[in-house]
């Protein structure tokens, strides 16, 4: 009985975004953080762990320094982590990434009572594709945009949040759920966690561990095998500072009309 959570280390976009000549992100020169939605997925897993005693295993694909993020997750309460890391995997787009992660998760093993959580999307690519693609490749049912999760035996009841409402979906395990930030408030690390996370299990899965898996096709992984080609990446120009007018009376509307007229908009 375990919960697998896929997580990603992303550039801290509150700073400046650096781009390589080939258009991909220059991750080395930017501060990294744990993708915010992934923390909601971790919290959802830890909440279920507290209640039902699940083992929580976090998976990430990335370069060696991603170990820091995995230690941090173990300091929060994650039991075990897997770092999928190989030169051959570098530069993968969502199609290639989900292929590799699905192979890694399948190699680790998915049991009937397991759940897989992912964050809705990562703040660097904003695609929201990896979670659903992993589910497809593992032939698992998926529910995206989970805003509430309830467990009853082998069935999860999910409020799937939409722009103007929500759907209530029942799904049987094993399944993939992608989580949104409204789902919960992620916990902090605990002090004891920061002491003990260094001795907790972290497995590295390299190319050799996965290359013979049926999902892995050497021609569709890494930068070269990725069907997505990045044309250009850039930091969008800052928008000007907006102006707030407060008050519901005629005085405010007159003022607004005055400003708009002054700019020759009306």
């Amino acid at each position: 009985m375990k919960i697998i959570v896929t997580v990603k280390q992303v550039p801290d976009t509150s700073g400046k975004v650096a781009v390589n000549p080939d258009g991909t992100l220059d991750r080395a020169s930017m501060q990294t953080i744990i993708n915010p939605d992934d923390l909601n997925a971790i919290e959802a897993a830890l909440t279920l762990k507290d209640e039902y005693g699940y083992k929580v295993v976090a998976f990430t694909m990335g370069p060696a320094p991603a170990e820091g993020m995995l230690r941090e997750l173990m300091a929060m309460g994650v039991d075990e982590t897997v770092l999928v890391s190989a030169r051959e995997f570098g530069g993968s787009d969502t199609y290639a990434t989900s292929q590799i992660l699905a192979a890694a998760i399948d190699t680790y093993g998915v049991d009937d009572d397991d759940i897989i959580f992912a964050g809705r999307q990562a703040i660097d690519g904003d695609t929201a594709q990896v979670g659903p693609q992993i589910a497809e490749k593992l032939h698992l049912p998926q529910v995206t945009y989970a805003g509430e999760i309830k467990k009853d035996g082998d069935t999860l009841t999910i409020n799937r949040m939409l722009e103007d409402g929500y759907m209530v979906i029942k799904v049987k395990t094993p399944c993939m759920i992608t989580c949104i930030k409204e789902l919960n408030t992620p916990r902090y690390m605990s002090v004891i966690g920061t002491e003990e996370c260094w001795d907790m299990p972290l497995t590295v899965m390299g190319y050799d561990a996965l290359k013979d898996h049926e999902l892995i096709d050497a021609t569709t992984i890494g930068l070269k095998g990725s069907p997505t080609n990045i044309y250009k990446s850039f930091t969008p120009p800052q928008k000007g500072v907006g102006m707030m007018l407060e008050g519901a009376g005629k005085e405010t509307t007159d003022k607004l009309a005055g400003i708009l007229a002054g700019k020759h908009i009306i």
Partner: protein
Amino acid sequence: MILDKKHALQQKLFREFAENEFTKEIQDELDTTHEFNWDMHKKMAKYGFMGVKIPKEYGGTGSDHLTYALMVEELARVDAVLAIYANTSNSLGGGPIMLAGNEEQKKFYLPQVASGEKIMVFGLTEPGAGSDAGGTTTTAIPDGDDYIINGRKCFISGAPMADWIVIFAKTDLTKKGSKGISMFVVDMHLPGVSLGANEKKMGINGYPTCDVVFEDVRVSKDCLVGPLNKGFQYAMKTLDGGRLGVASMSTGIAQSCLDEAVKYAKERKQFGRPIADFQGVSFMIAEMAADVEAARQLTYHAAVLKDQNSPEATKACSIAKYFAAEAANRCAYKAVQIHGGYGYIQEYKVERLYRDARIMSIFEGTSQVQQIVISSSLLK
């Protein structure tokens, strides 16, 4: 000092916690109502803050002094009084039991303190015995298997919320000065224990302080902590550890003063440009930055020496406490000065920092007492 991975991660935890949880509303509420915030106390306890220095076998996290210093600094950087919440159990509260308690006492008291269920405070100071702690007049007279305690302790931080107090009382009246003093842990709910009114303090509001009065308080001999008549040296050792906490807290306050000053100097415009453009202001910021960094390095260094059980640790803690407390006051002065009139208004954080900084060079040994400790270790 460059932090290793573990301490860097812990610094991140404490910083994130303080920045997210110690909201301006909570800070203002503490400063205006002066009331203890139990919710915050419990939240900090849940993450293990109350037991960083308490060994794992007694319910703590068994972390080292550097972790403790980082915690107190990062919490104080956002709010000094909330740093005291997490400090007490690790320092003056739990410290004497960790230092001198027997196995039974450690097993009974420490887990409850580490979990935050119970609060333990430290009672050394008396109206007539401040820096001269040897002037203790509280007495504990043997009576069968018990001791009868009489006396008055003052400026006891946390007393109104406390379940237990560690006090120092004369057990051998024939001995003068610091001799013949013993340490006891006393249940605050025992008959004969009463509280004075809460003091109206200049700063660190939100962690109430008052007198504790003992009138014929009967405690069993199990409440004696450490050897009879040797309590004074444990008081001094406890304060030794406490000084590291105050040094860390002072570093946090000094850093906060610097943060506020930098932010304001860039925002505030006079004579058509930001005041940061004026050297009179920028030089003050440079002085503050040097003070903050020096205070931090001295504090971390003292923490590492304590972790190594170095014979130099006592002096290093006093040097760190002395320097960092004075630095916090210098930085608070400059931060208010850079803010000008706005720095004198409560709406700006530096007003409170100025008041909170002031106690740093007084409690747990004044700057002058630290100078005595430092110089006497050199001149012996």
